[in-house]
């Protein structure tokens, strides 16, 4: 796994590295403000490749048929109705489901071409590279500074801790708001600030990918806007996967979108989610291939 570790300085390299997995660009990239159009097109590099992934919590699958890939420096949105397994799926990208007794992952989850569920892969190592932001802000009951310093400290990166904290808070657009009260308890912050703190906490360990599980569902529109701006900013250096219930949010921020649906088994009401469509966000929202996607994104169902 080590050869795939990307140094932060290298994050914005021009072309895909030789060791990476190049895949053909699927059509025109969704452009924002015309910026991406101006850039020379380059082969899209996959961070994650999912093939026929099935996640189960018991005898029956919670989500199945998941096949898509996540590109470098892209925001990939997972959308769909409640219970369709979006959160279940995102939690298997950093092996968070390992913490749930009985959770099982089948199919292939490749991270930089390497099987994430191979027997020799250490889940703790995985989570160092693939950070996660949760639905509800979950700062530790510690000071703002200690929250950010937590990750570097447990990973034994204790040099230049002050710098690391300042850099993470600056990246999360929080530094100016909190620089004078770094030693105060994080619970004194507003919900939106707490969530940006959680993002900063995640950035402080220098991950490669950031997974966000409905990061704005507990926030007001202003805080949501700040987090969305932040995501646009962060995708220059990181790759982001976001689960969201808010379709406008998916349309605003993401480059690629996977639409999930939920199927009810006829005999016992067991719900199983599956991916119906994966494509450029623009295509999903303007010209989806599947009628279920269209019904969902136009608000007819869900």
């Amino acid at each position, binding site marked *: 796994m080590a050869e795939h570790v990307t140094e932060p300085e290298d994050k914005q390299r021009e072309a895909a590295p030789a060791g990476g997995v190049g895949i053909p660009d699927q059509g025109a990239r969704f452009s924002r403000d015309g910026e991406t159009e101006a850039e020379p097109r380059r082969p899209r590099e996959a961070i994650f490749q999912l093939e026929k992934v099935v996640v189960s919590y018991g005898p029956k699958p919670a989500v199945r048929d998941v096949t898509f890939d996540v590109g470098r420096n892209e925001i990939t949105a997972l959308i769909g109705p409640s219970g369709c397994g979006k959160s279940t799926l995102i939690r298997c990208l950093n092996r968070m489901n390992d913490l749930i*007794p009985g959770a099982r992952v089948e199919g292939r989850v490749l991270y930089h071409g390497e099987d994430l569920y191979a027997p020799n892969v250490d889940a703790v190592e995985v989570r*160092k590279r693939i*950070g996660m932001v*949760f639905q509800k802000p*979950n700062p*530790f*009951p510690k000071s703002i500074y200690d929250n950010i310093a*937590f990750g570097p400290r447990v990973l034994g990166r204790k040099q230049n801790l002050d710098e690391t904290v300042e850099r993470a808070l600056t990246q999360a657009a929080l530094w100016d708001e909190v620089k004078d009260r770094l030693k105060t308890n994080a619970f004194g912050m507003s919900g939106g600030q707490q969530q940006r703190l959680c993002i900063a906490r*995640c950035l402080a360990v220098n991950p490669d990918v950031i997974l966000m599980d409905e990061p704005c569902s507990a926030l007001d529109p202003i805080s949501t806007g700040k987090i969305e701006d932040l995501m646009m900013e962060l995708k220059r250096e990181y790759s982001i996967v976001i689960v969201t219930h808010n379709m406008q949010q998916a349309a605003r921020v993401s480059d690629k979108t996977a639409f999930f649906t939920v199927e009810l088994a006829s005999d016992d009401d067991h719900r199983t989610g599956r991916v119906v469509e994966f494509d450029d966000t623009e295509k999903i929202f303007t010209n989806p291939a599947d009628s279920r996607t269209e019904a969902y994104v136009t608000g007819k169902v869900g």
Partner: protein
Amino acid sequence: MEAGSTTAAGARAVPSLGAARRRYGEDVVKGILILATFLSILTTTGIVVALLVPTIEFFGDVGVWEFLSGSKWTPLFEPPSFGVLPLLVGTLLTTGIAMLVATPLGLGAAIYLSEYARPRVRKTIKPALEILAGVPTIVFGYFALTFFTPEILRGLFNADVNIFNVLAAGIVMGFMIVPTVASVAEDAMSAVPQSLREGAFGLGASKLSVSLRVVFPAALSGIVAAIVLGVSRAIGETMIVLIAAGQIASNSIDPREPHYSLASFIGATAKGDVPTGSTEYKTIFAVGMLLFVLTLVMNLISIRFVRKYRQVYE
């Protein structure tokens, strides 16, 4: 406007909200609950008063300073001496040794049960631990006297240990307290929200880091409460000390020596034949009062500590 139209519009009767009805059943329940509350307060007050009156009488015969600073405790001999320090030394020694055993073992067990054990293991072990907490202390006392001292301590120290000694009493008392500490601390750690653990795991923290750096501090108030509960039990423990540590008031801090403690003195003297109303008799209450104050101070300190260092989480 016609009167008729008003009637037509008001055909649907509006129920009156003003007719307050007294609910007598509610009053009765409230009365019973108030009674239960006051009864428990009354009992506590009664105990304090019952303790206080003979204590005050005792201090009419013996000076407070003489009692607290004297280092010779021979109330039943002639001439009597009422220095309580040897008993305090005995209590602190046994409590200290017991907590040296119970704190690491109890907290270790709590971390294992809360963070590492699979649900099925936890469901089996925790009730078993709690049953252990219900074993009568006299059993532990005889275990210390007839097994722990002769077989283990004398084995370790080459028979250089008195058959009655503080070390055996303290260590066995520690074993007795482990389930209490483990159970209360485990409850506190289990109550830490899963979201905090996930936040830490999501940063690449190992299980040990999550347990020690997130769960442990977040549960600190409950953990301190568990330790304080353990200390309170150790301070008040009578039987084990009485049986296994002998009944010799001493200022020695050598744990291989026999000792008397506050609680074991009360236990031994109360079952003896001191005449009611005598100064010797009243010592029981004075020592009991000291024990009560010690425990109270412990609890107050712990409440302050918990308030100061408490990490509030949602």
